[in-house]
Every structure is written in C-alpha cells, then in structure tokens.
C-alpha cells in the first residue's frame, strides 16, 4: 500500500496492520525516517518536503511491485509525508511482512534504498530565515546499486 500525505501517521497501528488477520505472517520489518535537528554542523528548525504529485505515487508503486517480485511477501507499506516538518517529526515509513524474517528484512531495506534514489521528493532545510535544498548523497546511490547486483536472497 502506498500513502503520500501531509499529515502524520500512527507508526504502531500501521505496522500492526501488516500482520493483522494473517496468521501466515511470521515477521514484520519496519523502518521509519525522522527529521534530524542537525544538517552537518548546523542546527535546523524545519524541513519542507516537496514532491511531484502523480509521479510520486507511480514511482512508489513501481518500487513496491519490484519488492513483491523479488521476495515472498505478504504485505508491504510505504508512507511518505510532504509539506513542512520539524525536528523529531516522522517523514517516512516502509514496512514488509512475510512468513520468514529474511524476506521481510531485505524487502524493507530495499524499499527505503530505492525510494531514496527514485521517488521524486526534495528536502528544503530551514534555519531561521535561511533555507537550503538538501543535496543528494553518493552513499545513497551506492545503497541503491547494491540491489542491482545483490538480487533476491533465497
């Protein structure tokens, strides 16, 4: 399931829903991303997320479908927020449920790694009156690329 929304989400409730009513689920793995109060050496007091409506949903759905192709998953979830957030706020939640833990762990990591390099979101950090667009990190490309060679775990 894909949700792109301005409002906050209930982490525990969303993760619980991945196994509710399905006794075939043996494990759920979840990752949530939060707004940090520091960007490098400087303090920030806001982070505003912009996205590309239409492409965002398609991109996340493609990533989710790819996870289901690679691993035997019961359910997956991607929630990504947009708009103005503050340090401590939740930005993103990805989660996967499966009969066994390996698929759940791998799929969860895959979902966030590919989301970071493919989904059309941009972060604008605010500090007082100053704002700055966050630059993409080379380490995120490496995290993406490892799933190009390190395919489905058996």
């Amino acid at each position, binding site marked *: 399931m894909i949700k792109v929304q301005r409002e906050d989400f209930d982490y525990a409730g969303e993760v619980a829903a991945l196994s509710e009513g399905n006794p075939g689920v043996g494990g759920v793995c979840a990752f949530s991303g939060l707004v940090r109060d520091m960007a490098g050496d400087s303090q920030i007091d806001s982070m505003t997320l912009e996205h*590309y409506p239409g*492409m965002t949903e398609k*991109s996340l759905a493609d990533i989710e479908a790819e996870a289901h192709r690679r691993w035997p998953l019961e359910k997956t979830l991607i929630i990504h927020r947009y708009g103005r957030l503050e340090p401590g706020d939740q930005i993103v939640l990805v989660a996967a449920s499966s009969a066994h833990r390996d698929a759940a762990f791998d799929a969860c990591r895959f979902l966030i790694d590919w*989301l*970071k390099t493919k989904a*059309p*979101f*941009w972060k604008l950090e605010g500090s007082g009156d100053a704002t700055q667009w966050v630059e993409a990190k080379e380490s995120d490309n490496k995290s993406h690329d490892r799933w190009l060679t390190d395919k489905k775990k058996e």
Partner: protein
Amino acid sequence: MKVLYFSWVRDRTGVGKEEISLPENITTVEELAGWLKAKGDGYAAAFADLSLIRVAVNHEHVKLDHPIGADDEVAFFPPVTGG
C-alpha cells in the same frame, strides 16, 4: 507540451509549471533544455550545468537523449532527496 520544474530548478526558472509550443526541430530532452535556456536569465541559470539536472518524461526517469513529443509531460529537477 507541459513542462514542470522542481526544487532549486524551479527557484531559478521562477515558474513551477508551464505550457509550451514545442518547436519542430526539438526532438530530445537535451534539445529542449537547450531551447529553454534561451528563455531568460533564470532559465539560463537553471540549465547552466545539465549534469546537475534529472529528467522525467510522463512520470518516468529518463536520460537526456530521450525523445520527446508535443503531448509529453516533461519535468526537470535535481537528484531526489526523499526518505
């Protein structure tokens, strides 16, 4: 053709979305970027270094040599930073 700009690309062009009449001799994303560059100083600044720009055509990531047509939606933006 619908053209969209995001993040600092939009900050520089000064517009987020516009309709343009695609000249017939413009057949790729790279040619479009070159044509847009001539629209004004903001556009010139936005497209000064194409190695910093990423592109989507009809909601799919594509390379600069990707072909385009009058009915396409083209978006220009910096590398994404979500998650």
